[in-house]
């Protein structure tokens, strides 16, 4: 018990250090690059208006986006102070909307779409993988496994575009873009929920379609080796039902490596599915990042990157903790 707590504390310390490093890098990287948001805005203003920006305008721009001539330590302290109020700065493109607000709006869409599909793809892939690996070489395995290998090597954007073209454009079953019907008021109404589902089903289907194969192959291969273990043989000798031997003995052990990948994938959910959100113009974090990249919205990028980094770290921490529960042997090794 004591050892288990020591293990958890050690992991927690590691992740705090990693988070600190991430915040530091996130602060430093944009400042190491040539140019800064204030100058970019000033240049843009001068280009549009064709005349010099007045001194007081320059001052207020620098007050909002930071003064590049301040010393770095002072900037870092300011940055940390901002972060402590969840202030990620102001978006350049959507001036003067705070980055935090934009992220906050986009986050639920991404969590809903990418979170659900990640879980569903993992569940389907793992289940089929266990069945394929349980009787390696059976007809089920011989057909499904090569087919999946093929499907998961098809580039995702192509799958997404094809699906959009067939189901959205030719058949007209699903909307061509967006996350909801813009004519409906946002809120918890039935019509709104239906429109969200209607918009989400195609992007979700393409993600699941492209992602389940990886889980299937990993799980199948682990199951093939686990099935040869003595404890599976003994479970069969005990006369337990096939389902019990298959899931409680074989799959339960075979899924341990898959589980790490799953936890990482959950961390990646926050980053959104960049290609999906671009192809389907889905109002999530990925689309936000895409817009920010296109328009060089540095505060936006910085905010999204920080969010993604922290989410991945958090997912890793959760994976570590869950692993302690899933594999009792880990507790000893730390």
């Amino acid at each position, binding site marked *: 018990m004591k050892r288990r707590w020591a293990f958890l504390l050690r992991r927690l310390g590691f992740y705090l250090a990693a988070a600190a490093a991430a915040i530091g890098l996130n602060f430093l990287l944009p400042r190491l690059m040539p140019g800064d948001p204030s100058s970019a805005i000033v240049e843009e203003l001068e280009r549009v208006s064709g005349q010099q920006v007045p001194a007081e305008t320059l001052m207020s721009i620098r007050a909002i986006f930071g003064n590049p001539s301040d010393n770095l330590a002072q900037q870092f302290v300011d940055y940390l102070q901002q972060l402590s109020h969840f202030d990620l700065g102001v978006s350049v493109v959507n001036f003067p909307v705070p980055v935090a607000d934009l992220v906050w709006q986009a986050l639920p869409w991404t969590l809903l779409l990418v979170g659900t599909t990640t879980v569903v793809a993992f569940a389907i892939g793992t289940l089929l993988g266990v069945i394929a690996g349980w009787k390696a070489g059976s007809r089920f395995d011989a057909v499904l496994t090569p087919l999946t290998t093929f499907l998961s090597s098809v580039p995702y954007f192509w799958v997404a575009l094809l699906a959009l073209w067939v189901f959205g454009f030719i058949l007209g079953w699903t909307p061509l873009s967006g996350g909801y019907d813009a004519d409906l008021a946002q809120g918890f109404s039935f019509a709104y929920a239906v429109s969200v589902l209607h918009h989400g089903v195609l992007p979700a289907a393409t993600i699941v379609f492209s992602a389940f194969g990886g889980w299937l192959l990993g799980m199948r291969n682990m199951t093939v080796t686990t099935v040869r*273990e*003595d*404890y599976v*043989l*003994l*479970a*069969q*000798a*005990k*006369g*337990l*039902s096939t389902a*019990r031997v298959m899931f*409680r*003995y074989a799959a*339960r*052990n075979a899924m341990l490596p898959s589980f790490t990948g799953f936890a990482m994938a959950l961390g990646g959910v926050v980053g959104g599915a960049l290609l999906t959100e671009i192809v389907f113009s889905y109002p999530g974090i990925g689309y936000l990042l895409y817009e920010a990249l296109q328009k060089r919205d540095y505060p936006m990028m910085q905010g999204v990157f920080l969010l993604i980094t922290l989410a991945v770290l958090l997912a890793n921490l959760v994976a570590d903790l869950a692993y302690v529960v*899933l*594999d*009792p*042997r880990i507790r*000893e090794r730390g």
Partner: protein
Amino acid sequence: MITEPAPGLVTAATGPNSTVLSVRGLTVDYLTDGAPVRACDDVSFTLRRGEILGVAGESGSGKSTLITALTRLQRPPAVTTEGSIEFHSRDGSVDLVSLSASELRALRWTSLAIVLQSAMDALNPVMRIGAQFVDVLRSHDKGLGRKDAWARASELLGMVGISADRVRSYPHELSGGMRQRASIALALACGPELVVMDEPTTAVDVVMQRQILAQVLRLRRELGFSVVFVTHDLSLLLELADRIAIMYAGRIVEIDTAHSLYANPRHPYTRGLRDSFPPLRSPLRRLSGIPGSPPDLRNPPAGCAFHPRCPDRFEGCDQERPLLVDGVACRLHQSGENRA
């Protein structure tokens, strides 16, 4: 001292010396791309209720193949091609070879249990020890409550000298000896009539080995199950088994009581095995090994499989294969009409 006289190892219902297992002509092939490899060839023996039959042989002699065939745990490419395994259980006699999967499942653990070689590998690493008892107890006794099953698991562990609080441990938290005893207790969970043991003491030190063997003998006396005990260690069997079968190249070459097998081995291979370890309580004897190595089963020698290594071979041994007659398969001991 763990040797004891064979007592009245009898369960009242079935009478003395009744047969629990009779194996006839059991043949197991490994199907390969080329010709099938015969790992068990025409194996026949009977096992009485409460008896311990030891099966000894070198690596590759077909011991493990025999075990997986007996318990119907074999996996492709191993296939039982001939023979029958008649099992006379409490509920009647069945042929294990032809039993359907569901009939077999009903018989498993309640009548037919197994102890595997390495308990570390045989116990599920992510399940508590107790849970691995509970699932088998409850799957064969639907009326058994969860709480009672856990209590029964503690009780079974107590039977092999493991304290009750260990029931909630994971396998890696137990020592090697404890794990091995736990898997013996596990095998006895549903009161089997036959327990097949595959070198259950190979992975533990000699002190633990003695303790485990003593426990097997004591439990056998108390519970009256029969044992097929497979090992490469003949000296161990001499102290444990009532009868011993010696396997060579997939065949039983000699089967006899432990005492006469040791005092008077008839097959040259048995004698070679006996003479390759020092006696514990008899006068010192010159040790000798068996020259050469076991045959390649993909290409077994003609005649008696042992003849290339046999010190006593004579004319015809490389052509005629001796059958198991009167407990020995050797032409030295067979009159003309018994030869194949």
